[in-house]
């Protein structure tokens, strides 16, 4: 069964001076345990899409269904890594407390264990006692990732989660995500600007058009469940898919650069 079903979804932001249609008539589904990458031009409506799925904004048109029931309000068992990661951390809580914050149903020790584990996974084992504003941009972003992972959601929405980390860390985090997805069978919807990343991570890649976003293509990525940074990226399939996505994004014929 489909975990997530998006049906005729559209959203228009209303303002005093005119309204702005961010997304329009989006249709797609995501199966349970799938990892779908979303790519699209800047400002096309990817963040808006994630927000509607998370139930944070009520779409102007269409529906989002989770497990067959229509989303109305924030669904359970959901975690989001926001694009604006620095603002999504609570400045009055230390890094560890930030990660522990959503885990209120757990016992204290379990909470701590989860936080320590998640922070170690993103390479921030030593930063637990610091406050968010004492961290670099990339470190803050990793705290936000650690918080989402520690929550162990069944649906994980990530909005450009690796934008601010260096290449090396990015690779490690990508592999971390793949591993966790395998282990916990998490469904992931991940927005990225890195075409390579979308192909490397995704079971499928959803290509969106310019604003208002519509679905341009829905590509399957037949690279198998286990991937590795060097082998996979060097494979012919990978290079071909990458070029395909890039071409779709440019809106022109597929060209390899």
């Amino acid at each position, binding site marked *: 069964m489909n975990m997530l079903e998006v049906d005729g979804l559209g959203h228009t932001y209303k303002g005093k001076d005119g309204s702005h249609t961010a997304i329009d008539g989006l249709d797609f589904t995501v199966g349970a345990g799938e990892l779908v990458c979303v790519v699209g031009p800047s400002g096309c409506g990817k963040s808006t899409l994630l927000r509607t799925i*998370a139930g944070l904004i009520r779409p102007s048109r269409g529906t989002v269904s989770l497990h067959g029931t229509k989303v109305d309000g924030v669904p359970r068992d959901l975690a*989001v890594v926001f694009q604006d990661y620095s*603002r*999504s951390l*609570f*400045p*009055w809580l230390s890094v560890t407390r930030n990660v522990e914050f*959503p885990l*209120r149903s757990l016992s204290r020790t379990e909470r701590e264990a989860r936080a320590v584990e998640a922070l170690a996974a993103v390479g921030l084992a030593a930063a637990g006692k610091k406050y968010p504003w004492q961290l670099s941009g990339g470190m803050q972003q990793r705290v936000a990732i650690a918080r989402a992972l520690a929550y162990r959601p069944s649906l994980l929405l990530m909005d450009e989660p690796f934008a601010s980390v260096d290449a090396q860390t990015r690779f490690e985090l990508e592999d971390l995500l793949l591993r966790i997805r395998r282990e916990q069978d998490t469904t992931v919807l991940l927005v990225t600007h890195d075409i390579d990343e979308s192909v490397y991570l995704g079971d499928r890649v959803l290509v969106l058009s310019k604003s208002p976003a519509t679905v341009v293509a829905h590509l399957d990525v037949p690279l198998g469940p286990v991937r590795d940074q060097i082998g996979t990226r060097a494979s012919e399939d990978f290079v071909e898919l990458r070029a395909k996505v890039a071409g779709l994004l440019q809106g022109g014929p597929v060209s390899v650069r």
Partner: protein
Amino acid sequence: MNRFTRTAQRWVVFVAAVALWELVTQLAEASGAAMSFFFPPPSEIALTAKDLWFSSAFGKHIVPGVGRMLGGWALAGVIGVAFGILLGRSRHAMAYLGAVFNFLRSIPPPLLVPFFVAAVGTTNMQFPTIVFGAIWPVLLNTVDGARGVDATKVETARVFRLSRTQWTLGVVLPSALPKVFAGLRLSLSIALILMVISELVGSANGIGNQLVRAQRDYEPTAMWAWIVLLGVLGYLFNTVLLALERRALAWQPRHSLETQALATGG
């Protein structure tokens, strides 16, 4: 900057102001200026103050009033924060209660005396008067702070389906806290002022009662001594509150403009 220069900085203007006050009043007295009777020099006030404050007046006039004032202020703080968060985060609460609160807030406390006299009586009205007057700065500032919670943080909280308490105490309150403290500091002095005003009616003791009696009995030195006492009390309570604030807001990257100034030497 070392401790000493900081302390010196803290007191230099105060000391200069008192010195100037002394000088002006002494000169006025020496020249026999018309109103000098009502403006005694601070040295004289200090002598009277010593006798007044540390006599039996302490237990009789200072302690009960100050106790009421602190209690009233604390209650006002709790109510103000609670309603502030409610009104700041709930459109409905604001729609229904906002008007009533704005109406009540605008009634000058002395005009409210009839209500309190009617409701709790002449002798018991001090406490409600203090609470009623001291609520507003906390309430309004909390509303402001609660409404100002950053949008991304609101969304983060909603995504993780925080419980109501966690949302209120863990997100809204901390982000409103700096503004709450601004309100609490304003309320503190208002509570002290209302303590004085409320002691004008129906009471046989209290600083306000003594102050007005000194005024009526043409004892300006005593009157000034009571006024100075209010200043001293205000300063002391404020200092304690500031220490509390520093602890509660320790997480803040202290203070943006100040650190900027220090980091760059100007």
